[in-house]
């Protein structure tokens, strides 16, 4: 794999497209167990991300990822802002100065991003948060020597679907305790859109 400026822009553009298409769905998921703003917040944030990165020239992927982070931090009003903002900031810092990312760099960058999410949200795996998608993906990548788009996407999808049976321990849904069981975690679903977009973009490049 090679993640360069051009395909990272494509990645974010496709992620935005999926989030816009599923804005109502994300909101419905969040209305069931949260405050119902996830779709609106993510749609606003990623719209701004696309606007920012398509209007800017970048020499390297890390600067691009930093702008993704800063835009999400400023424009997403819910918990997704600081969490995704931290994730992309850590990813950007982990690959600082890199024009492009190869598989080992991407792998270690994603591990740093996960660590950032866990630290910021004080969350662990199994608490029905986006950690439940990010951690299985980082674990999966650790066992791989190259990027397999189909494998990556299916791990993300399974992990996202598995949040349905979990009881929320973090975020608004935690107030509902066992009533949160039986619903997908909205943050895990939006994470799935982000990762399936990456898989699609990298698959095209094969």
């Amino acid at each position, binding site marked *: 794999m090679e993640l360069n400026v051009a395909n990272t822009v494509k990645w974010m553009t496709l992620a935005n497209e999926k989030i816009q298409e599923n804005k109502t769905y994300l909101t419905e998921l969040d209305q069931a167990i949260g*405050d119902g*703003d996830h779709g609106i*917040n993510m749609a606003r944030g990623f719209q701004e991300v696309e606007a920012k990165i398509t209007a800017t020239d970048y020499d390297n992927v890390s600067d691009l990822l930093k702008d993704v982070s800063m835009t999400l*931090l*400023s*424009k997403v*009003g*819910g*918990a*997704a*802002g*600081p*969490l995704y*903002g*931290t994730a992309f900031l850590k990813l950007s810092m982990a690959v600082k100065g890199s024009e492009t990312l190869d598989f080992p760099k991407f792998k270690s960058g994603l591990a740093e991003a996960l660590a950032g999410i866990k630290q*910021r*949200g004080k969350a662990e795996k199994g608490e029905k948060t986006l950690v439940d998608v990010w951690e299985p993906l980082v674990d999966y990548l650790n066992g791989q020597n190259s990027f397999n788009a189909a494998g990556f996407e299916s791990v993300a999808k399974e992990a996202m679907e598995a949040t349905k049976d979990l009881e929320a321990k973090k*975020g*608004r849904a935690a107030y509902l305790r066992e009533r949160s069981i039986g619903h997908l975690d909205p943050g895990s679903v939006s994470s799935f859109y982000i990762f399936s977009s990456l898989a699609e973009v990298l698959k095209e490049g094969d």
Partner: protein
Amino acid sequence: MANVSIVLVSHSSKVTEGIRDIITQMVPAVSIGVAGGTEEGEIGTNIDKIKQAIEEVQGEKGVLLFYDIGSAKMNAELAVEMNEYKNVHVVEAPILEGAFVAAVEAGMGKSLEEVQAAAEKNYRD
């Protein structure tokens, strides 16, 4: 701003305004910054608003941040870390009661650490 200042971070500007009204009625000598709601005035928190509120009330004795739920704490912590503020702490106490206790203590001219300890005393996990 000779005293420790306070910043209130809530999902709603009505909450931050209301708490400020309650506190200033009793303690007028403490500066209180507010960061309530999103950029568009909707329910949520915004890191840029928090930064602005901190800078509005920042004096030599420092600033204490009080937050409500969800993203408020994460955004408050991020605002402090990313701007590398000195003497700006996020307090673990209920936003209304904690900020009220803090304002009374701050109004007596106490230090940042003393005010923070007083506010957190009864509420620590």
